[in-house]
């Protein structure tokens, strides 16, 4: 059950993942409707007018995300028909889509947050605010993804061992990490892993996202191993776990935007962490891959040019 390396995003083949995006579309719709229902069901207070506006806004926001996702999925499928000559165009189209989505979502989410700020403090208001915050984070993540595809990268020598050591330090503080054996192994013979040219902040974020994923999809007592090796003109970084694994029909899609595997139900997250890692690695001229067996675990890797 192995998957081939994924090529850089701008040239990556964009599959018409109608089913996947439809799944992705359900989450924001459900979230929006849940917020809406929640507000609607609350016993009316002096702020009935504001609350009515709020539940409408919440419902619209959720449905908006879904509608845009579905519409653009269909658009992307049409686009896919011409993809043999237009892989780069598809990447650009995808970026524009993410920016459009950001644009269409940010006003309703801003309105919801402003409306919530007018409600008297209560457990209910705090709970709905947390959900609005999730929507806001999703919008921010989508924008982040779009920007990463084009923004100029800072390229300076990055000491891989030093960076991984810091990621490990941060990762052991992740919720649940103390219940897993989270190790870092850096070979010293015949020589240590050296430096790679790149943007340290972004590479840090990408690898950290792999570790977050490993912690999320493993159980207390599982092992998570971070490791790196020198392959001459490339450096390979792997994050391996003895966690729950990824079913064969999902393994190819884990790097896609808003990908949420069947095991992800009930696990918090936007479904953008690995997509972000893929984009970052692609921008550095590298590739990502994954191998997984259900019940045994998963290894995710990055291969980055050393010069």
């Amino acid at each position, binding site marked *: 059950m192995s998957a081939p390396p994924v090529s850089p995003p701008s040239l990556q083949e964009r599959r018409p993942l109608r089913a996947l995006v439809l799944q992705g579309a359900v989450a924001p719709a459900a979230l929006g409707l849940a917020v809406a229902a929640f507000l609607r069901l609350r016993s009316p207070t002096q702020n009935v007018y504001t609350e009515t506006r709020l539940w409408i806004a919440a419902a619209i926001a959720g449905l908006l995300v879904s509608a845009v996702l579905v519409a653009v999925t269909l658009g992307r499928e049409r686009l896919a028909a011409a993809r043999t000559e237009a892989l780069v165009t598809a990447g650009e189209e995808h970026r524009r889509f993410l920016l459009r989505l950001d644009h269409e979502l940010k006003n309703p989410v801003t309105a919801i947050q402003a409306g919530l700020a007018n409600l008297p403090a209560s457990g209910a208001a705090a709970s709905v605010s947390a959900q609005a915050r999730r929507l*806001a984070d999703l919008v921010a993540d989508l*924008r982040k993804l779009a920007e990463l595809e084009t923004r100029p990268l800072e390229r300076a020598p990055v000491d891989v061992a030093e960076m991984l050591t810091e990621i490990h330090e941060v990762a052991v503080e992740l919720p649940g990490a103390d219940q897993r054996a989270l190790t870092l192994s850096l070979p010293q013979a015949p020589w240590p892993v050296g430096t790679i040219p790149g943007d340290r902040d972004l590479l840090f974020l990408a690898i950290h996202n792999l570790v977050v994923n490993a912690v999320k999809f493993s159980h207390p007592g599982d092992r998570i191993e971070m490791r790196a090796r020198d392959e001459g003109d490339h450096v390979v970084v792997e994050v391996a776990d003895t966690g729950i694994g990824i079913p064969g029909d999902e393994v190819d899609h884990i790097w896609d935007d808003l990908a949420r595997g069947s095991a992800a139900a009930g696990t918090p997250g936007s479904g953008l962490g690995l997509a972000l890692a893929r984009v970052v690695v692609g921008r550095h001229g590298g590739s990502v891959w994954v191998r997984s067996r259900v019940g045994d675990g998963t290894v995710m890797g990055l291969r980055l040019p050393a010069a």
Partner: protein
Amino acid sequence: MPGRQDDGPRPLVLLADDEEAITANLAPFLERSGFRVHVVHDGEAALRAVHDRDPDLCVLDVLMPRLNGREVLRRLRADGMWGPVLLLTQVGEAGERAMALEEGADDYLNKPFDPQELVARIRAVLRRARPGRPPLSAAGTLRSGRLRFDRVARRAWLGDGELTLTPKALTLLDYLLTHPDELLTRERLLDVIWGFTTPVGTRAVDNRVAELRRLLGDDAADPTWIETVSGLGYRFCAKVETAS
């Protein structure tokens, strides 16, 4: 005007956004936060309102009918009106940054935002405002003691020696110098450097601040320029002036 919201009449905020769902919810919140609010829904109305009502601060959305927020700001500045302006957009890409310098907004906030954050920014901008004079963010060169920063060329000097800074450290220095004496959280600085926030990224901010301190020879325990605000972020604690 310093202290105005504490002991004077409540500051008047002009809120310009074409989304009624936003203004209808934001205006009452700002009023409860101690401001008077005048709402308009397009750029031309915003320009008229600035001339008719002389607000203490304008919050301008960028995408508005008739005249966009950037154009409103440009026209105000062209008329020599230097009242504080907060633009509801992102300062991110290099091109936008150059435009930001040219247009001279006092601060930026990207949607969606936490309304509390908007209030905090409004207060900080009002505190910083220098009535009748261009904001630091509209200045080409800034000086703070021996430190000089050419914001157009993006070059910095300490005394006679030019500093070699990474692009992100330059961006950070620019923001610190244009927001003196203001608590800048790690999250906000990360947003400035990267245009987004992520929980692990705050370490990136610490690394850049360390880089700046090293080059400036600034002692974190007894800072001349960059003060650590324990558990929260940083503050540029030295006086900043416009240099010609």
